[in-house]
């Protein structure tokens, strides 16, 4: 079944996006990405180690930017200005690529986004020609504002980053999906495969996750589980689930029972 995810002008056949943080080493990161089938992988931008370990391998030596679509994030930024600078650095780092995940945090503990700074940064970045995929709260009004501003994908949290609490507000997500003209990608909160399926069954266009895979006992196996969960959730959404009933309904015929 051909089921292409379009983000801006780009097309993808996988609806699972994977973060590259918290793995044991770069090899495990790469193996998890391969097992997940993800085509888009996120990276963070940080100061280069200029000290004694300056000959350490770099993440992008393992994750070839020609093979995967690298999505640099602005994680750790608490102001629009810092997020904008980070995106400009990532564009320089990735030879002019303008695909970015905007994330402006508001609180160090709960990692909820600061939405006023997020919207401010999104507007500047879009004006500068960036393709902005935006991490945001699951508030339909903010999501609509980011959609109207020209973000290429809306990425509401399902629950706090790294919490693994799953989809805690499916009703908000449904409203956002209904209103959005852009792909809605759940970013953050997925803990296990069923969470991914639930998000996809709701009609999300994709899921971005990191901790659920990296912190599993067996990250490679969990990456494979997530690949299947996203696919089954998507197929169930496309198939259209049966209506829920509050009474029983036998599947076997009543006629022809032996006496």
């Amino acid at each position, binding site marked *: 079944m051909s089921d292409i995810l379009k983000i801006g002008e780009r097309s993808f056949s996988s609806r699972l996006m994977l*973060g*590259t*943080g*918290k*793995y044991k080493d*770069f090899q495990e*990161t790469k193996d998890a990405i391969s097992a997940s089938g993800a085509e888009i992988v*996120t*990276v*963070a*931008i*940080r*100061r*280069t180690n*200029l000290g004694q370990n*300056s*000959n350490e391998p*770099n*993440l*992008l030596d393992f994750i070839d930017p020609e093979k995967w679509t*690298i999505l*640099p*994030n602005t*994680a750790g930024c608490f102001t629009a200005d810092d997020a904008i*600078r980070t995106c*400009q*650095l*990532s564009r*320089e*780092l*990735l030879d002019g690529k303008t695909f970015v995940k905007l994330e402006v945090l508001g609180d160090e503990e709960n990692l909820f986004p600061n939405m006023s700074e997020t919207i401010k940064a999104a507007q500047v970045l879009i004006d500068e020609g960036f393709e902005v995929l935006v991490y945001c709260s699951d508030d339909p009004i903010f999501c609509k504002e980011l959609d109207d501003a020209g973000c290429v994908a809306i990425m509401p949290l399902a629950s706090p*980053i*790294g919490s693994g609490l799953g989809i805690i507000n499916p009703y908000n997500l449904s409203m956002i999906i209904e209103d959005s003209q852009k792909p809605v990608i759940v970013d*953050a909160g997925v803990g296990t495969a069923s969470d991914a399926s639930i998000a996809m069954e709701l009609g999300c266009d994709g899921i*971005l*996750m*990191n*901790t659920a895979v990296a912190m599993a006992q067996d990250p490679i196996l969990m990456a494979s589980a997530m690949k299947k969960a996203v696919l089954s959730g998507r197929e169930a959404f496309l198939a259209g689930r049966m209506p829920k009933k509050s009474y029983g309904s036998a599947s076997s015929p009543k006629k022809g029972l032996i006496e």
Partner: protein
Amino acid sequence: MPPKVEVILNGKHKRLESNKLSDLISISNLENKRFAIEINNEIVPKSQHDSFLITNQDKIEIVEAVGGG
């Protein structure tokens, strides 16, 4: 001899023996690596790395891609 400069490099005060950005890249073992440089909040594009001259008290950020979600 190029003039020495005092800068803030990735958040640390540092005295450099040369004001050439290309020398800083070289002593930092960054040649042929994937990185980006910002000086005083402005990107210095790769095309300018060879010719760019650092000024005293410049605030230099050199970044790379690391694992993140």
